[in-house]
């Protein structure tokens, strides 16, 4: 039969394609700097003139290092939250990347956060011959410095990196001085609501938010779970937060203070009764970047209004650090 023949033909074509399934010869080793990636493996970066960055904190770092002009593509969140990056080609949401699309931007270096995906795409990029540097999505303020220094070294901007790192230390020193005057450790519940989410969620342990609250002198009452969970009346009432923390966008989406008071249980908490809802820039929670010190400082002020009055005029150092971004 004729189609059997055609079938055999296609099958052999298929086999031929299959045979191509061997890795291409690896590119030759050029001189460059070696930095450790997320898994601790050494990656040699020899050319950082064209960078694709996936991860808002990474993109923020690259801009803070003054290397924004080297960027040739960023992920959707970077583009949304960082004004400078808005005009760059977008390579998609960081969880649905396209390896070939990224490569078509002819990058010489791809810096990508480990919570991007699909995981296979990261493997594809690593196998493509383009230097691919994976970075951990870190959840502590201290690890941000290491990340900044790594990216700075990869870009050959170590001095600038050191400067950013120092400014974080500096900001944190100011935070500490604020903290010395703080009178209490309020219980701070973070509530978030995504654009298409029917229900509000709250943050537990092991998130950037949990760390921010801790460093800013608050206490996250939701310590019995990791990550994010949907809000439930009883859990919220039981947690009895003094302050509800939100991002500005999510605060707007929820319909302001009155909207937030309608979230499960909120009206029955001290925060709800006193209408203490604090909204901060969305950027603060897009992973920790070089602005983390400034963010923590800002949050500390908002969580401890009692220190604010005594502290006017001394925020300039931290402000200056933030402005450099």
């Amino acid at each position, binding site marked *: 039969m004729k*189609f059997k023949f055609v079938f055999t033909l296609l099958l052999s074509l298929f086999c031929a394609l299959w045979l*191509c399934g*061997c890795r291409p010869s690896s590119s030759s080793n050029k001189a460059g700097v070696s930095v450790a990636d997320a898994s601790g493996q050494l990656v040699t970066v020899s050319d950082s003139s064209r960078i694709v960055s996936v991860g808002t904190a990474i993109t923020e770092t690259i801009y803070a290092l003054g290397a924004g002009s080297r960027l040739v593509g960023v992920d959707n969140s970077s583009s949304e939250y960082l004004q400078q990056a808005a005009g760059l080609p*977008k390579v998609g949401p960081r969880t649905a990347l*396209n*390896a070939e699309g990224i*490569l*078509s931007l002819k990058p010489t270096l791809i810096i990508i956060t480990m919570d991007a*995906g699909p*995981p296979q795409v990261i493997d594809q990029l690593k196998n493509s011959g383009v230097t691919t540097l994976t970075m951990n999505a870190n959840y502590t303020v201290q690890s941000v410095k290491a990340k900044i220094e790594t990216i700075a070294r990869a870009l050959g901007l170590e001095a600038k990196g050191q400067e950013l790192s120092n400014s974080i230390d500096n900001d944190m020193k100011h935070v500490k001085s604020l903290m010395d005057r703080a009178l209490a450790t309020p219980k701070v519940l973070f509530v978030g609501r995504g654009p298409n989410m029917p229900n509000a969620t709250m943050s537990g342990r092991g998130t950037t938010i949990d760390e921010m609250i801790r460093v800013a002198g608050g206490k996250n009452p939701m310590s019995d779970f990791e990550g994010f969970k949907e809000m439930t009346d009883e859990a919220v009432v039981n947690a009895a937060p003094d302050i509800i923390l939100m991002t500005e966008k999510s605060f707007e989406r929820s319909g302001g203070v009155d909207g937030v008071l309608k979230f499960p249980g909120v009206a029955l908490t001290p925060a709800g009764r006193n209408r203490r809802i604090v909204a901060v820039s969305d950027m603060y929670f897009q992973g920790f970047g070089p602005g983390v010190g400034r963010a923590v400082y800002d949050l500390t002020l908002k969580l401890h209004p009692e220190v604010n009055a005594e502290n006017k005029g001394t925020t300039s150092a931290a402000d200056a650090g933030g402005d450099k971004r």
Partner: protein
Amino acid sequence: MASTTAAARIFPGLRRKANRTRGSMTLLGLALLLALIIFLSVDKGAVEISLAQCLSIIGGRIGLHLPWDFTAQQEATLLTIRLPRVVLGLLVGAGLGISGAAMQGLFRNPLADPSLIGISSGAALAATLSVVVGDAVAFSLPPLLKLFAFPLAAFAGALITTILVYRLATIAGQTIVATLLLAGIAINALAQALSGFLTFYATDTQIRSLTFWKLGSMGGASWANVLVASPFIILPILLFPRLSRALNALLLGEAEAGHLGFDIERVKRETVIMVALSVGACVAVTGLISFVGLVVPHLLRLMIGPDHRRLIPGSALLGASLLLGADLIARTIVSPAELPIGVLTAITGAPFFLWLLLRDRKWRVIH
């Protein structure tokens, strides 16, 4: 029409030939279409690689030196990203096509589709389970087995769901369509609920795998994936033709097929296993890509009739063409980003399904 019949009566061989020729011409056409789409898929993409360079690169792999220059970047893109993706699309499209065709034959209902009646969900759920629960176990497995653990889990999930749906929707060999579709709804809902439950315990990395399955994506294509999926999909493609005549007879009714000398229980068993194999493998490597299994056999029946001897190879060809075509659009239209292919197939497939329901309804009113 009447004149053809008259001619056929005088020359009995004539009509038979005409009929068959039309069938095999269509298949030949489909094969050519597939070849064209393979060709386009290899050639087109976000990274600019000319046809000559493609030839040079592929030639280079098999020891042929062609004069056209290419960069290492182009070579890497073609060999490690685009080609595995094309081959995987070929496999998954063919797998979804034939499993849809076989499923509709088995249930004797043109609305049966692996994704619609919950089989894909079952496979995805099992794969999810293997990720969330099995991670701890999998660490102790040898790497090759670990690679196959995924499709095997998905296969098991597909098999269990198929048997469950079949038991639910079939009474004394008759499929009750309403029950079939309702069972599908129930299983889809259950799978969704259970995977929601699993995400409760999943780590961030695991959750990303779960979203990947839910939307369906060809983005994860790699030669390892191709290696893993090939046996599960090629085996049914090779074995289904043996069942074609039995599936034809089964359309008359189970008893009737039995009277024509077919071992119906065996045919049903083999069909279910084969469908579960290919659906499981497809889900494991690309997630939920719906409606391909529904649309492809339908279009083909309009072209070449319901005879499984042509329908099954045809579904493999057209399924592969359709999925490769959809993927070509998905990965080039919003370049450098890409659309989730499951979204693309659902956007085109769901209206088609509605049209079918509508047509079916009209048909029932008229006749």
